[in-house]
């Protein structure tokens, strides 16, 4: 562990921050990433819910996200029922999916290769957002990676940091259907939610789908001009926790480092 990291809350009390060894991001030949998503939330714009997407946004992303469809949904609230449209834009082979909602833009891929590539797509999205969101800040930026380790319930030893799965590896709980933990904490750049476990996905084979490592790092109230730098920072923190979470077998699986970013 690094030297203990502390911060002060609004009442002057100190609290501890995420404290895992800093690791320089690396690009491996393989990865466990099933979904990588970045969400940019902004002050609500009702017009986005129209059938046509905002023209400024559409112009800015059309070259890279040429396919557009309208997603119709119903928002059910305690005292209301409202129809809400969202706009989905996809790259030519649908590798990259961009969803524009009344208060958020989401970039997602299920075929992640490197952060450099992800960042390049995100740069296009942020440039488009500048012309659309009628605000100079994002209310929240979140970066989430959902990883699935290819190991069954009895093969976890070596794949995951023993600090996370000690009792499970030792058989204390026996063969379990569900083993999960949710950690919510603070970093030097906002907050995080780390969820990991077995059988955490819905479906009949949920426990056989591998061990899930789900990292969600975020920061609130970010100037649009600082958005990319913030995402980079979130990625660094996320990669450090990801590296700490792995066991030796998982590191072997990732293979050789190909470059600086993962």
């Amino acid at each position: 562990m690094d030297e203990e990291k502390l911060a002060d809350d609004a009442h002057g009390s100190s609290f501890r921050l995420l404290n895992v060894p800093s690791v320089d991001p690396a690009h491996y030949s393989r990865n466990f990433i099933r979904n990588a998503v970045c969400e940019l939330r902004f002050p609500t714009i009702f017009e986005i819910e129209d059938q046509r997407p905002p023209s400024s946004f559409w112009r800015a992303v059309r070259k890279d996200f040429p396919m557009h469809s309208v997603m119709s949904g119903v928002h059910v609230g305690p005292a209301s029922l409202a129809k809400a449209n969202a706009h989905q834009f996809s790259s030519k082979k649908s590798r990259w999916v961009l969803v524009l909602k009344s208060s958020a833009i989401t970039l997602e891929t299920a075929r992640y290769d490197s952060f450099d590539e992800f960042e390049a797509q995100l740069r296009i999205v942020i440039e488009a957002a500048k012309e659309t969101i009628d605000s100079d800040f994002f209310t929240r930026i979140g970066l989430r990676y959902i990883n699935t380790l290819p190991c069954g319930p009895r093969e976890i030893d070596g794949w995951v940091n023993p600090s996370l799965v000690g009792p499970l590896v030792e058989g204390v709980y026996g063969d379990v259907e569900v083993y999960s933990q949710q950690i919510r904490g603070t970093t030097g750049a906002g907050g995080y939610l780390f969820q990991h476990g077995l059988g955490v996905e819905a479906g009949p084979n949920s426990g056989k789908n591998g061990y899930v490592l789900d990292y969600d790092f975020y920061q609130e109230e970010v100037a649009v001009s600082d958005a990319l730098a913030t995402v980079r920072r979130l990625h660094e923190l996320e990669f450090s926790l990801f590296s700490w979470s792995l066991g030796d077998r998982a590191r072997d699986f990732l293979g050789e480092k190909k470059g600086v970013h993962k």
Partner: protein
Amino acid sequence: MTLATREQTPLAGESAGDYSTSSPLSKHGTHFAAKKAGSQQTHFGALTDVPEIIMISTRTVTPLGDEQELSDSRYFVHEAEERLDEVTAARDRRLELLARQFVGESSPEDDARFHILTQRLRRLVPSVSNDAWQSLDTATSTLEEVSAHLEELKKQFDLR
């Protein structure tokens, strides 16, 4: 693992035409070409025939001072209409967000937009109007003039 969406990054899912109202004939007659009823063209000022006036568009003629004023006032009317539209749109959206707050359904993004719209309305429809500012400005100037006059009187009668 199910969490409130707030706490988690979710997966994806204007022709106006030519203006026919040009400068007054008596004042700027030289700006007009005139045509006899028929097809023979002559300059306006030939009083033997009543000509059919062909009005030259203000768009193709450099306007004189009072024409410019006409043009500007038209611009201001247009600008005021746009501003009114902006105020109406901001007010309607703000009310919508206020309703969401009332029923406890507003998100931090809704609240952020509510504050942005509130500030925008304060700018567009200030509670202290321009007329009020001008009245205060006039009163301030009057006070300054009176103060200066009093100072002169004090000097004149050695009242210091």
